[in-house]
């Protein structure tokens, strides 16, 4: 079962490229996946029909007792066969129906994705897994309804469907969680009816689950999304919105019938809502002028009847449920596909324009005739048996059943009328007037309706077949007690037969009087005016208006206000922590290390530089003061015995200044500091001071406590024996915490790629730019070097200097494991060397010296670092475990290789950005 879902997912993932290459023929290949799944489920039929179940479990969240458990019983098998069988035909059909659509591959992918989700839904025994699949069907349904997303109607319908089914899904999740807690298990099969029905939470569970099921299966008053969903292409309507997805709600009710059913409230709600939905759907169906919408509303009717039948819980009722489910899936999918074929062949679906099509489309017409007979409930079709059992099941209920039966006679008579519209009106009689001359459709488009329609006949005429292989096991899975199942066409002269005869008579009368009937119906203007769609639109508008008001309050678009409130909130939370601290935690730090003059000077420089950068208006001053501040930072690090950090800071400062200088040349001067309004300036100063004060207090609290743990000592002790390196900082970076470093260089690489693409296009756009007027100067930088480096003496000095720097960078890289240096520092130094070269001699020259493009260097660096990790993996150890060899007393290991990766990544990222920038700006 898992394999069949996996196969369909696989087909989904190759659908787009396949359709791109093969066009409409891709459907034939893709249909193999659901066909194989269908065959798989067919093979399971003997086992399941004999009362067995197939269970497959995949651990998912064992700690919470949630697993991906699949369980195939009669009900699941019935649904799985419908999903995969009709699915195969639909994939074939869609390939032909949308053959000229440029997103055919996307359509196939959505469709197969839905199929996998739906299959998971009906197979899952675990409630949480079922819910995930449930939501996936909602999402794929959204994508499919909105497939023609350039039409506003499609987008609106898709959103409506998603909001209604998604909202119901939330209720369902809450209901399932309650059910799981009350029932004591997350498996449907382990729930026991008795314990749940008596529980105090039973009403809440029932209400929540029913909301979920009713929204999905379009029951009153949530039915309005389903007719609108007909905006989707016809294969979607045929598959999702009649045969499979809309039945998910009914499926859930059937699945939970053993656990939740049997209470009076269950029966009352299901029968009332179901019958009302059926009647409303049937009445609305007759009013429609579009053939597809007629079918959509009859689908609503059928869903209502299925819900109602589950509510009866009688022997006949449950048999009728299973029979009707199959009968409807067969004839409705066939009719939808046929209507799509009519639309495809004639260019219209308007009933008034159709007529006499049987002469042009005999094959489709034959299929429609069979399906429409089944739809109308005429013998010997499967729909007839469904109708007989339906009446028998209702009559079993007593007085309430008679009333419902009367409603159903009316409803089914209207369904018969609708069937008449589809077949008699469209295919017989006078020639219609069509936008295109009609023609018979191609094989993939008529084979589906034909097979399904014939299926409805075979199951009706040879009903013993369906009974033994499908219906019996399905009914037992739905029922609380064993139900004797026996299907028949002729059961003697029973009340059900009388009701049936009455239905046919009334249906024929309605069909003959259909014009008058429709005129009568449209007289009830008041009823149509208060349509559900209008209420929906108003409701949505209100919600959007409210959301806009709320959002305008918080998302006003002022960065400074956002930052201010964010900062104040952070400070507020920190203050709560400080206030809540005990007296021991609020002591002035005593155990401080003695004053380090150099570090203190660095502090002063860092603060003074930053303060100057914050207040001085000029651009040059900005660069200089910020550089000074960074220098102060480096001094602090150096004086605090952190040479690696200090060198890194120095190199970064150097490059920062280069970047700033290059970008600032193009920016307008900044004259003002802070905000215009003095009040705002005061507020901003207050915000800054508050956070600064809070951070200082937090820092003092931190350092007043003794340093917990011995982690520093562990690194110092293990660096040489474990990491083969004397420079502990470097060993931490490339060995102990190498995974962190891998993530960090990945971030550096990504930032480099993103920044470079923003800093200006590649050399091509640059070349195009030189055609402009003012660009003679900025092209020169790339070719000959900046004019600022015009001095020959300077250039001659730079050449050996950058060469020296390059050598130094390699030395730093090599010795980094034991002495100050390493990949980060080496990469930054090498980048500086190249930049020097690029500034003096032009980017072209620098690129020529490098030979490898920086972006390739970046990629190679990341690959090398990752490969160094894989070595450990190959040896059966954890990813990035160090491996060492000692050829001739030399210690060589994967951490060194990893450091080379770091070196290349940093060098590539920095150069990728800087060379682009110089090309554009120098």
């Amino acid at each position, binding site marked *: 079962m898992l394999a069949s879902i996996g196969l369909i997912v696989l087909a989904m993932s190759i659908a787009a490229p396949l359709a791109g290459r093969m066009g409409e023929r891709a459907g034939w290949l893709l249909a193999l996946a659901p066909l194989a799944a269908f065959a798989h489920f067919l093979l399971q039929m003997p086992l399941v029909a004999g009362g067995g179940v197939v269970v497959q479990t995949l651990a998912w969240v064992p700690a919470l007792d949630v697993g991906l458990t699949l369980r195939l019983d009669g009900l699941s098998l019935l649904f799985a066969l419908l999903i995969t069988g009709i699915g195969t035909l639909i994939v074939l059909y869609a390939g032909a129906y949308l053959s000229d659509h440029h997103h055919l591959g996307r359509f196939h992918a959505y469709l197969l994705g839905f199929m996998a989700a739906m299959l998971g839904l009906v197979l899952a025994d675990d409630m949480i897994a079922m819910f995930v699949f449930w939501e996936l069907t909602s999402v794929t349904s959204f994508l499919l309804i909105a497939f023609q997303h350039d039409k506003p109607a499609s987008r609106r319908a898709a959103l409506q469907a998603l909001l209604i089914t998604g909202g119901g899904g939330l209720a369902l999740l809450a209901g399932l969680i309650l059910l799981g807690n009350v029932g004591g298990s997350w498996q449907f099969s382990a729930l026991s009816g008795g314990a749940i029905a008596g529980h105090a939470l039973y009403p809440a569970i029932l209400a929540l689950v029913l909301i979920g099921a009713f929204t999905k299966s379009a029951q009153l008053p949530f039915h309005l999304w389903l007719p609108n969903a007909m905006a989707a292409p016809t294969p979607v309507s045929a598959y999702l919105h009649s045969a499979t997805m809309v039945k998910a709600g009914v499926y859930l009710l059937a699945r939970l019938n053993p656990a939740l059913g049997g209470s009076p409230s269950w029966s009352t709600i299901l029968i009332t809502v179901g019958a009302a939905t059926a009647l409303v759907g049937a009445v609305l169906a007759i009013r429609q002028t579009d053939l597809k919408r007629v079918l959509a509303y009859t689908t609503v009717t059928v869903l209502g009847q299925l819900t109602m039948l589950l509510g009866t819980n009688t022997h006949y009722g449950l048999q009728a449920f299973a029979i009707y489910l199959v009968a409807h899936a067969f004839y409705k999918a066939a009719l939808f596909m046929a209507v799509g074929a009519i639309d495809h062949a004639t260019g219209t679906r308007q009933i008034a324009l159709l007529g006499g099509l049987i002469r042009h489309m005999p094959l489709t017409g034959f299929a429609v005739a069979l399906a429409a007979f089944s739809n109308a409930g005429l013998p010997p079709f499967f729909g007839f048996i469904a109708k007989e059992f339906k009446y028998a099941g209702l009559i079993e209920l007593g007085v309430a059943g008679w009333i419902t039966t009367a409603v159903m006679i009316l409803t089914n008579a209207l369904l018969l009328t609708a069937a008449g519209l589809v077949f008699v009106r469209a295919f017989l009689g006078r020639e219609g007037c069509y936008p295109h001359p009609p023609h018979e459709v191609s094989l993939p488009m008529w084979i589906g309706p034909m097979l399904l329609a014939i299926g409805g006949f075979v199951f009706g005429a040879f009903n013993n077949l369906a009974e033994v292989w499908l219906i019996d096991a399905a009914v037992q899975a739905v029922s609380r007690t064993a139900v004797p199942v026996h299907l028949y066409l002729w059961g003697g002269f029973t009340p059900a037969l009388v009701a049936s005869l009455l239905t046919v008579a009334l249906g024929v009368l309605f069909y003959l009087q259909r014009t008058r009937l429709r005129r009568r119906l449209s007289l009830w203007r008041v009823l149509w005016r208060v349509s559900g769609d209008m209420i929906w639109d108003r409701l949505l508008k209100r919600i959007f208006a409210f959301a806009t008001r709320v959002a305008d309050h918080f998302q006003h678009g002022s960065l400074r206000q956002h930052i201010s409130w964010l900062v104040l909130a952070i400070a507020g939370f920190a203050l709560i922590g400080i206030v809540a601290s005990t007296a021991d935690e609020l002591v002035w730090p005593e155990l401080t290390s003695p004053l380090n003059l150099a*570090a203190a000077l660095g502090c002063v420089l860092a603060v003074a530089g930053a303060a100057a950068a914050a207040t001085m208006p000029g651009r040059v001053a900005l660069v200089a003061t910020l550089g000074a501040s960074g220098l102060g930072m480096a001094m*602090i*690090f150096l004086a605090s015995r952190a040479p690696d950090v200090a060198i890194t800071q120095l190199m970064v400062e150097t490059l920062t200044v280069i970047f700033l200088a290059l970008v600032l040349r193009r920016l307008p001067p900044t004259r003002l500091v802070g905000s215009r309004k003095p009040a705002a300036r005061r507020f901003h100063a207050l915000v800054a001071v508050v*956070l600064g004060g809070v951070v200082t207090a937090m820092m003092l609290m931190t350092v007043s406590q003794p340093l917990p743990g011995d982690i520093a000592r562990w690194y110092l*002790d293990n660096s040489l024996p474990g990491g083969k390196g004397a420079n502990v900082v470097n060993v931490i970076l490339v060995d102990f915490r190498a995974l962190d470093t891998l993530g960090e260089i990945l971030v*550096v690489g990504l930032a480099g790629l993103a920044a470079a693409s923003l800093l200006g296009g590649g050399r091509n756009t640059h070349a195009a730019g030189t055609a402009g007027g003012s660009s003679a100067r900025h092209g020169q930088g790339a070719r000959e070097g900046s004019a600022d480096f015009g001095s020959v003496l300077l250039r001659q000095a730079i050449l050996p200097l950058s060469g020296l720097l390059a050598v130094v960078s390699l030395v730093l890289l090599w010795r980094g494991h034991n002495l100050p240096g390493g990949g980060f520092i080496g990469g930054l130094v090498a980048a500086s060397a190249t930049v020097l070269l690029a500034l003096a001699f032009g980017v072209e020259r620098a690129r020529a010296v490098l030979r490898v493009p920086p972006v390739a260097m970046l990629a190679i660096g990341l690959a090398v670092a990752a490969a160094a990790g894989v070595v450990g993996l190959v040896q059966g150890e954890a990813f990035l475990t160090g491996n060492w060899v000692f050829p001739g007393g030399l210690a060589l290991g994967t951490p060194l290789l990893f450091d080379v990766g770091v070196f290349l990544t940093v060098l590539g990222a920095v150069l990728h950005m800087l060379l682009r920038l110089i090309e554009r700006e120098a």
Partner: protein
Amino acid sequence: MEIIVSVTVGLLVAIGIWMLLDRGLLRVVLGIVVLGNGVNLAVFSAGRLDGRAAAFVTEAGAPALAANPLPQALVLTAIVIGFALFVFALAVLKRSFELHGNVETDRITAVAEKPAPDLPAPAAAQPATPASGAAAAATTTATAGTKPASPPAALGAGKGAAAGTRT
């Protein structure tokens, strides 16, 4: 020493926030750097500053008063990542100036945020602001190659035009 560093961290953070709240986007970007320096220093000093020797070990073992290597390693990578972030922010700044001809925090929002194509445009028409005027002028220059007819009041129309020819 820790006290001095703690105060330094607080001051750097305060200055960084002040810069983040500046009107000009350039200083906002530089504020990120200052704030980052403050945070780096905070992480660094959380490992305490009582080391007497750098964290280098020999066969004989580590020096008794070696500096704490872990925060050093963390800060080292943080500096490089902070640098990458800074360059990225600078690139965004430069690009938004080229596109909108503006480097003021709140005006960028007004120019850059356009309503979704489906929704009807709000009554307050966007082109009223001088900022988008500059952007429009830049586009005109890019196509026609002439001086902008109405030089925007606020900032660098010439720069905007120069950017326009290159975009």
